[in-house]
C-alpha cells in the first residue's frame, strides 16, 4: 500500500475527467430530483364488513378477506409487510419487524406472504422467530389490490384506517421508525 504522495501529473484534468465528473453530477441530480418528488401516502383504504384476524399463521386470504381483516383492526395502527422467502431484503428486515412488534404492543404488525410456497414461509417465520400474525396471498389478489410492484412493500395505516406511510422496497431502521412515527408520534 502506497502512503507517500507522488508528483501530480499534468494529465490530471483531461476532457475525460471532466466528462466523468459531469456524468456523476447528472446522476446525482436526477437521483435527488427523484427522491424529492413528493409523497403519495393517500393510497388504499379498506372497506366492507370487519372480520377478525385468523387464529393460525399463513391462512390464505383473498382481497375481500384481507380488506375485512383491515377493517376489523380499526382502532389500532396497522403495519402490513408484503414478503416472500426468496426476497433478500425481506430476510434482512425481518429482525426489524420483530423489534417493532415487540416495542409497541398497540401496533398490529401483519405479514402478507405472497408469490411463494407456504412451507418455505413457515420455515422463514421459525428461522426469524416471528410471532406476529401472517396471512398468505396465494393467488396474488391482495398484492394487486394494494398495488404491490416490488418485494418487500410495507404500508402503515393509522387507527382510523387511513394510509399514512408506504415503502416500496427494503427499509432501514430509521425509515421504519419514521413510518411508525406517522401513527404514534416520535
Amino acid at each position, binding site marked *: 500500500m502506497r502512503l507517500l504522495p507522488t508528483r501530480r501529473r499534468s494529465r490530471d484534468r483531461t476532457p475525460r475527467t471532466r466528462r466523468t465528473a459531469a456524468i456523476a453530477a447528472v446522476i446525482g441530480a*436526477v437521483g435527488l430530483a427523484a427522491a424529492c418528488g*413528493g409523497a403519495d401516502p393517500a393510497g388504499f383504504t379498506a372497506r366492507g364488513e370487519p372480520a377478525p384476524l385468523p387464529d393460525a399463521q399463513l391462512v390464505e386470504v383473498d382481497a375481500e378477506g384481507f380488506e375485512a381483516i383491515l377493517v376489523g383492526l380499526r382502532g389500532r395502527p396497522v403495519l402490513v409487510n408484503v414478503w416472500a422467502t426468496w426476497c433478500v*431484503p425481506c*430476510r434482512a428486515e425481518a429482525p426489524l419487524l420483530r423489534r417493532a412488534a415487540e416495542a409497541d404492543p398497540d401496533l398490529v404488525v401483519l405479514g402478507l406472504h405472497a408469490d411463494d410456497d407456504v412451507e418455505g414461509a413457515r420455515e422463514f417465520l421459525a428461522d426469524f422467530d416471528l410471532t406476529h400474525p401472517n396471512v398468505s396471498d396465494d393467488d396474488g389478489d391482495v398484492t394487486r389490490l394494494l398495488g404491490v410492484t416490488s418485494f418487500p412493500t410495507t404500508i402503515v395505516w393509522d387507527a382510523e384506517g387511513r394510509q399514512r406511510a408506504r415503502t416500496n*422496497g427494503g427499509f432501514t431502521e430509521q425509515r421504519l421508525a419514521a413510518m411508525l412515527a406517522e401513527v404514534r408520534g*416520535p
Partner: protein
Amino acid sequence: MIDVGLAVSLVVAGGAVWGCARWWRRSHLLDALVSAVLVGAVVARVVHLAFEHPAGLLSPLELISLRSGAAWWPGVVAGVGWWWLRSGSAPAPARLVALAATVPLALVAHGTLAATCVVRDGCPGPSSAFGLVPPGLSSRVFPLGLAAGIVLVVLAVVLAHWAAPPLVPPLTVVGLAVGAVAVVRLVATLVTPTLGSRGPAVGVELVVVGVSIGVAVVGSRRGVASAA
C-alpha cells in the same frame, strides 16, 4: 431489484472522495482508504448480525444487506486496524501522519453517504415545520442525514486545510474527527424516531466522545512535547 438510491449514493460519495483526494493531493491514500472501508463494512455487518440474527451469517446475501443494520463503531475500529496493519513497515509516527491525512477523506465519504440519504430513504428525521416530506410518508421532517453530511464535509475541509499536521498533531486530528462523528451520531440518536430504547446507543456514543476527547488531548500534549 437494483437499489438505485444506493447506487446513486455510492457514485456521489465515490466521486466526492476522489475529487477531494485530487484537490488535497492525497490520491495516493485512496487504495488504503477503500480497503479499510470495505473491511470495516464487512465487520460492521457481521457484528450486527451476530447480535440480531446469527443464522444470517451463513447467507452471503444477508451479509451484504448493509442497509438493514451495521455495528458502526466495531466497523470503524476494524477499518482503522486493517489500515494500520496494511500500511507497511513505516515507523508509527509516519503512519499516524498518513492516518491523519486520510481522516478528511474518510469524513467526506461518511458525510456524502449520510447526505445522500435523500435518494435512499428520504432522510427520515424529527418532525419539523421545515424540511422534506420523504416519499411515502405524510409528515414534513428535518433531513437530519443531509445536515449531518454537510457538517462532516465542512469538518473534513477544515481538517484538510487548517488543522492538518504539522499545525495540529496527527493524533489530535484523529481524535477530533472521531469525536465529531460521535457527537453527530449522538444528536441523531437523540432526535430521530427509533424502534426501541435509545439508552444503549446513547451510552456508546457518549463513551466514544469521551475516548476521542482523551485521544485528542493526549495527541496535543505529545505534539507540544515533541515541538519543545
